[in-house]
């Protein structure tokens, strides 16, 4: 891919930095090998585009500021199918427009990364109100992989993880950022290149005559073929047979979407990541994700200081849901609390899993500002 571009700066800025959350996303993407970015201006995601417009061309990548978010998502998907590691970033209102393209990316199994910096409607205050949209926003059957960082360091790390998961499962992966994190400066440590896992694209070893673009093992993504090399692949939203053609076939349709959803659902124990704090002896457990993990952990400390045996389960992967682990915890504790910065969304998912085993209490706040540890702690005390 010779674009007559000369690499001017380093791709991986190994070392210790004091860095804006949005910049940590950019450094994570570049570290993961991102070489195509398209975005449309929106606060509070702008710093991602701004730094990309400088850093990406300097390392031989392509930066495009599109005419809208539909452009962003579709050009990212097509660049990905042309071989790029591609990303876009937006905030809630812009994320609305991208649902259509996420549906297409899921259907043609295009790896790509979407960063959604959640904000309140029309305003830039903090929220986690898009947590369901990130799972269910597009039409049709599909599965989402959504990662929820809670620090600038995690914005860096989970962006890399997002690129790797996208390549491994040939699926769009969403990094759920928030105003709170995106506009916060924190310590970020970027490791040396040799210590970073970089999932390369899996290309077929078959010749064009033998290759079928959507032939794959059960619950697995198919192998890629490069475009422009005579493999004549048809990437269509419509139902496609294993050879890519669009003649409708009811059994084929069922099989295709069983595989597209199955490759995520049936591998969820491999995809899902969590971190546990004080879970060993916990009598009740807080489940939190994103920036809310921070005050939640402080609240756990406060409770422990008073001798209350509370633990915390931090969800790194919020979609797919780590069902087995959450059920296991529910079997062993007296109550589960779900802390989130919205009117109570993810709690429905936790109730679905936990209610047969233990009661679930929803601790919500939706006024543009993160919970304080005292708010969480007093809500816990009230319920216990």
């Amino acid at each position: 891919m010779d674009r007559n571009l000369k690499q001017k700066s380093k791709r991986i800025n190994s070392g210790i930095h004091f860095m804006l959350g949005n910049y940590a996303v950019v450094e994570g993407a570049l570290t993961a090998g991102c070489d195509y970015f398209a975005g449309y201006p929106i606060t509070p995601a702008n710093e991602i585009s701004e730094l990309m417009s400088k850093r990406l061309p300097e390392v031989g990548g392509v930066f495009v500021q599109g005419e809208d978010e539909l452009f962003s998502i579709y050009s990212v998907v097509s660049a990905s199918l042309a071989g790029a590691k591609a990303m876009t970033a937006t905030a809630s209102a812009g994320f609305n427009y991208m649902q259509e393209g996420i549906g297409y990316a899921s259907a043609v199994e295009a790896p790509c990364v979407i960063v959604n910096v959640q904000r309140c409607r029309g305003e830039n205050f903090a929220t986690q109100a898009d947590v369901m949209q990130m799972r269910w926003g597009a039409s049709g059957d599909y599965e989402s992989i959504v990662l929820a960082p809670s620090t600038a360091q995690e914005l860096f790390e989970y962006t890399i993880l997002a690129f790797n998961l996208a390549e491994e499962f040939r699926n769009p992966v969403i990094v759920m950022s928030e105003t709170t994190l995106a506009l916060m400066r924190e310590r970020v440590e970027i490791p040396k290149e040799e210590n970073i896992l970089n999932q390369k694209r899996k290309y077929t070893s078959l010749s064009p005559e033998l290759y079928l673009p959507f032939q794959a093992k059960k619950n697995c993504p198919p192998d890629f073929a490069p475009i422009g090399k005579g493999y004549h692949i048809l990437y269509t939203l419509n139902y496609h047979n294993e050879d890519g053609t669009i003649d409708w076939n009811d059994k084929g349709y069922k099989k295709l979407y069983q595989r597209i959803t199955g490759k995520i659902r049936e591998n969820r124990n491999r995809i899902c990541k969590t971190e546990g704090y004080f879970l060993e002896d916990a009598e009740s457990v807080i489940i939190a994700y994103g920036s809310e993990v921070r005050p939640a952990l402080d609240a756990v400390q406060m409770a422990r200081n008073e001798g209350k045996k509370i633990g915390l389960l931090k969800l790194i992967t919020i979609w797919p849901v780590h069902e087995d682990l959450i059920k296991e915890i529910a079997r062993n504790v007296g109550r589960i609390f779900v802390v989130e910065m919205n009117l109570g969304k993810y709690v429905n998912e936790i109730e679905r899993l936990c209610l047969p085993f233990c009661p679930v209490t929803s601790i919500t706040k939706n006024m543009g500002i993160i919970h304080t540890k005292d708010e969480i702690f007093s809500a816990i005390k009230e319920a216990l």
Partner: protein
Amino acid sequence: MLHLKKNPLRKYIRNGKLPHFFCPGCGCGQILNYFLKSVDDLKLDFKKIITIGGVGCTARIPVYLNTDSFHGVHGRTLAWATGIKTYQPDLKVVIFAGDGDLLSIGGNHFLHAARRNLDVTVILVNNFNFAMTGGQVAPTTLLDSITMTTPFGSKEKPFDSCKLAVCAGATYVARWSTSKPFQCVKSIKKALQHKGFSLVEILSQCPTNFGRYALKTGNPKKVIEWIEKKSITKAKADKLSQNDLGDKFILGEFINKKEPVFQGTSLYKEEDQ
């Protein structure tokens, strides 16, 4: 002795599979032919051509082509094209779009891709209505035409897509109709060889929907004759006043110039190409 000859362009058809799904008398089959004739005459490397269709009758053309293709999302053809073309500039990207796909839902992408002079060829098949969905009014439907959503005649003025493209910054623009095969092929060839945003609009007959509802005839020949009667060459049109011209379709080449092509919004380059 009867000797059946295989169409030499058949080799460009995906899996050699025909017939296509276009209605009898539709212009899309002709345009598929004009494109393949152009590619064959120019001896282009077919492997390096990426064809794109959105949603609609015209958008199905790439489905029949033995190329790498993108299909199935309404209006986003030029967004796809930008991702491919900026990432792999060596590939040739050709878009087949209907008037609804390109000018209605994809209108914004159309303007901006032309403005940027993205190196892509757009073959716009203008049949004056949304045909696949059953004949609704389109941004190209003429004033007062009866369609399925304008039972009392359309009260919207249509776009002139060629004028629009020139104003937006396209660097090759031409318009012909399906009844002008030689001119169509000539312009498609020029467009394929052009470096920059090229638009070839081809006025096409839709006997099934536009013909039946707007022209009260399902006969493709009569629809073609209607287009012919309303058409005027650019050379002749240049001599007429806007009043005398009315809503005639001007056929010909509107612009052909060289300008730098789009490679990305932000570029770090040692030297200009």
